[in-house]
């Protein structure tokens, strides 16, 4: 299998540049046409500690992280100690001979002979790249992509280090890790979940994004900020998350499609604003990139424990939709769907991701931007009639007009209001408005993304999952099928509204159902029971801050 599927782990301390090493190797692999799944594991600190960047690379599509490591690239001695036990049989540790560590599977590289210390990361790239068969020119091109802006002399010195490293590795002829070449490599992009969300948002017509930095959501807005001038949008760092969501609601009310991105604690501060968007019927897309809580929790690790929180966020009763992308492609397409629903139903729509997916680089086929339909700003009122912002309608959707864009006046209120938007305590009107808002949920239910079934409908074993674990669960089931087991997966990329007709038959037909989630209490299983009465006894749960892997799922199931 190692000739088609390799797991490379780069380890070191914060500040050593291991992410750059990882990105350059990953991009080189993607440019060559391979499929990758990156898992980033880092500590909440700027210097020191232990971080890792794992690249699982495949000639065929890889969809999940893997625990066992084939090539361990150790930028410090601690990495060897931390990960030696995860080395696969015949795995190799690439390390600096100056670490003074020895072992059977150690490839001790004379880093200091090959370059100055400040280019040792490039040496690591060169040695590891040469061992897996990456062409020197390809790696040099990627180095330029990352270091090109830093000046010709630096580019030159990096190239020099790369050439020496490749030469050294070639002379030492390390075999057994060479990935086969492609005759016709597919053109791919390297993108992580957060990048795909920002690109999806831009293609949806996003115009305004406000944020307060919070790991692991921050890179969404950093991406948007980097493209802001070219894309014609404004990204504003707010004084706090409360301001961020209120700014976004204001911009959206005025007519600029808006988004906020945060994580658990920051979202806790935004919650009153969620209720405001619902009451004022203002479209807004809210990305919650989960990390382990409670409170500050583990800021840089992953978890899926905010499903119930997001589902119930905001006081009062109002419709909402929650998407839980499972792949990078879904991050892109479901972000677009979120904007579509927010604009159509005029209210809050959520994207629930997590640190694993946010930071997980993958190879993706370029999105056909020309073919994407444009997302319209919901239903617009005609300019001739008398305008009432909250006109009571059959489907609950009140046509919009934008303030200042016509002579009609637009009045929105967080208090209960009349059709014209003015504060009221007329209790008959109150009841009609509650019902009007609720009718929008009927529309949302009619267009939910149904869960994705892989395998037979009448499985002996059905694995139920949602969000970022899609790849791990799919691969686990596929491994079980190779062992002759009739295992299927049912994955939810939209977890609210739930429409039981879309999946109850599959649940009932399965001999046994196991729910797989990255949390300690089985929140999705509980939601299924609440909505359908179907009780899922067996669960595979993970809440140590690391992502689900096929190995973890299989091991837990065999307990």
């Amino acid at each position: 299998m190692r000739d088609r599927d390799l797991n490379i782990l780069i380890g070191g301390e914060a500040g050593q540049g291991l992410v750059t090493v990882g990105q350059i190797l990953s991009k080189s692999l993607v440019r060559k046409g391979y499929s990758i799944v990156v898992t980033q594991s880092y500590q909440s600190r700027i210097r020191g500690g232990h971080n890792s960047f794992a690249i699982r690379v495949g000639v065929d599509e890889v969809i999940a992280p893997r625990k066992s490591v084939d090539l361990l690239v150790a930028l410090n001695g601690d990495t060897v100690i931390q990960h030696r036990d995860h080395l696969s049989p015949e795995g190799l540790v690439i390390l600096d001979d100056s670490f003074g560590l020895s072992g059977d599977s150690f490839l001790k590289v004379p880093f200091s002979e090959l370059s100055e210390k400040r280019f040792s990361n490039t040496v690591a790239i060169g040695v590891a790249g040469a061992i897996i068969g990456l062409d020197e020119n390809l790696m040099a091109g990627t180095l330029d992509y990352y270091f090109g802006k830093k000046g010709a002399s630096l580019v030159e010195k990096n190239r020099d280090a790369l050439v020496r490293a490749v030469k050294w590795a070639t002379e030492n002829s390390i075999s057994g890790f060479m990935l086969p070449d492609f005759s016709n490599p597919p053109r791919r992009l390297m993108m992580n979940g957060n990048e795909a969300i920002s690109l999806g948002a831009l293609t949806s017509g996003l115009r305004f994004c406000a944020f307060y930095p919070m790991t692991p959501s921050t890179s969404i807005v950093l991406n948007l900020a980097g493209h802001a001038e070219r894309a014609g949008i404004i990204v504003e760092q707010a004084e706090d998350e409360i301001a961020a969501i209120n700014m976004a609601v204001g911009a959206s009310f005025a007519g600029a499609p808006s988004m906020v991105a945060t994580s658990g604690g920051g979202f806790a501060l935004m919650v009153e604003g969620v209720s405001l968007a619902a009451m004022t019927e203002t479209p807004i897309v809210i990305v919650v990139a989960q990390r382990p809580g409670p409170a500050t929790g583990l800021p840089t690790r992953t978890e899926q424990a905010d499903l119930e929180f997001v589902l119930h966020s905001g006081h009062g009763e109002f419709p909402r939709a929650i998407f839980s992308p499972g792949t990078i492609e879904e991050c892109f397409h479901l972000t677009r769907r979120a904007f579509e629903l927010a604009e159509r139903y005029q209210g809050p729509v959520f994207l629930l991701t997590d640190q694993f997916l946010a930071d997980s680089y993958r190879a993706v086929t370029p999105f056909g931007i020309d073919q994407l339909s444009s997302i319209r700003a919901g239903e617009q009122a005609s300019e001739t009639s008398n305008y009432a912002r909250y006109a009571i309608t059959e489907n609950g959707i009140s046509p919009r007009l934008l303030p200042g864009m016509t002579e009609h006046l637009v009045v929105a209120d967080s208090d209960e209001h009349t059709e014209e938007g003015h504060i009221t305590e007329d209790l008959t009107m109150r009841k009609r408005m509650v019902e009007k808002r609720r009718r929008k949920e009927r529309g949302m239910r009619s267009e939910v993304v149904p869960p994705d079934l892989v395998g037979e409908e009448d499985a002996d074993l059905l694995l139920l999952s949602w969000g970022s674990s899609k790849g791990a669960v799919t691969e686990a089931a596929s491994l079980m099928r190779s062992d002759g087991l009739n295992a299927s997966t049912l994955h939810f990329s939209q977890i609210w509204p739930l429409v039981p007709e879309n999946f109850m038959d599959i649940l009932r037909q399965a001999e046994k159902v196991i729910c797989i989630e990255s949390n300690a209490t089985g929140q999705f299983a509980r939601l299924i029971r609440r909505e359908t009465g179907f009780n899922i006894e067996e669960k595979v749960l993970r809440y140590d801050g690391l992502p689900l892997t096929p190995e973890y799922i299989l091991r837990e199931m065999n307990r």
Partner: protein
Amino acid sequence: MVTIDDYGKYETAWCPGCGNFSISEAVKKALVERQLAPHQVLFVSGIGQAAKAPHYLNTNLFNGLHGRSLPVATGVKLANPGLTVLVESGDGCNYGEGGNHLLAVIRRNVDLTLLVHNNQVYGLTKGQASPTSAGGFVTKAQPLGVPSEPFNPIAVAVAMRAGFVARAFSGRIEHLSEMIQQGIAHRGFALIDVLQPCVSFNKVNTFAWYDKRCYALPHDYEPDDWESAMKVACEWGDKIPIGVIYRNNRPSFESHFNVLKDGPLVSRKVDKTRLKDIMKAYG
């Protein structure tokens, strides 16, 4: 020709004698003086008796959450800088619940006019202390008297070199209306702190109390001089200055965004050619 009738007449939820009535009258006068038609104006308000004021005005309105009107207004202004945006709410809303937003909006210098109805007490929740209540002010919630010192919004705004800082008194409608007009005309953030009596819950700072103390700054007062403005900002007690206390010409927040030079965000279309370029960067 915009007239006072364009802004309508409404029944209110206010107590007879409330300072809000005069403030609303001054607002209407100012809008008419500046010949702004109702659809060109957008009010953002928070929660409280003052925050209801824009409901009694025939114009665009976003009546949001308690304390959060400034960020909403900032979002509105960035999305459509063509709108004349006014924010109207009370002392609790702007100086208490939304205090952080006040600091931030001053730093940004967003082109907004903030009218703070400052009656030194919470009206809608029936008489608790507000951030501007005097130390020792007795309420049912503070039966032994307010143990904190009052917030001085003018001094804070001047210290932060806010674009336009003024104080007015609801009892002097012409002057108040003039302050509002100047605030609207100012290209940047304008704070107008409006002293007003609360006839139901503040028996200390009454109409007569303010009327006796408020004096207009002399004609030769120079609001461009920051140091003298700091002194005037700290005046409070037997004499309370009203008028434009400080002013400068810092560029407005919106003027920093090149993106807005091509028109408001609300009118922009998705440019697929540029997006394809952006996507290429991930290759």
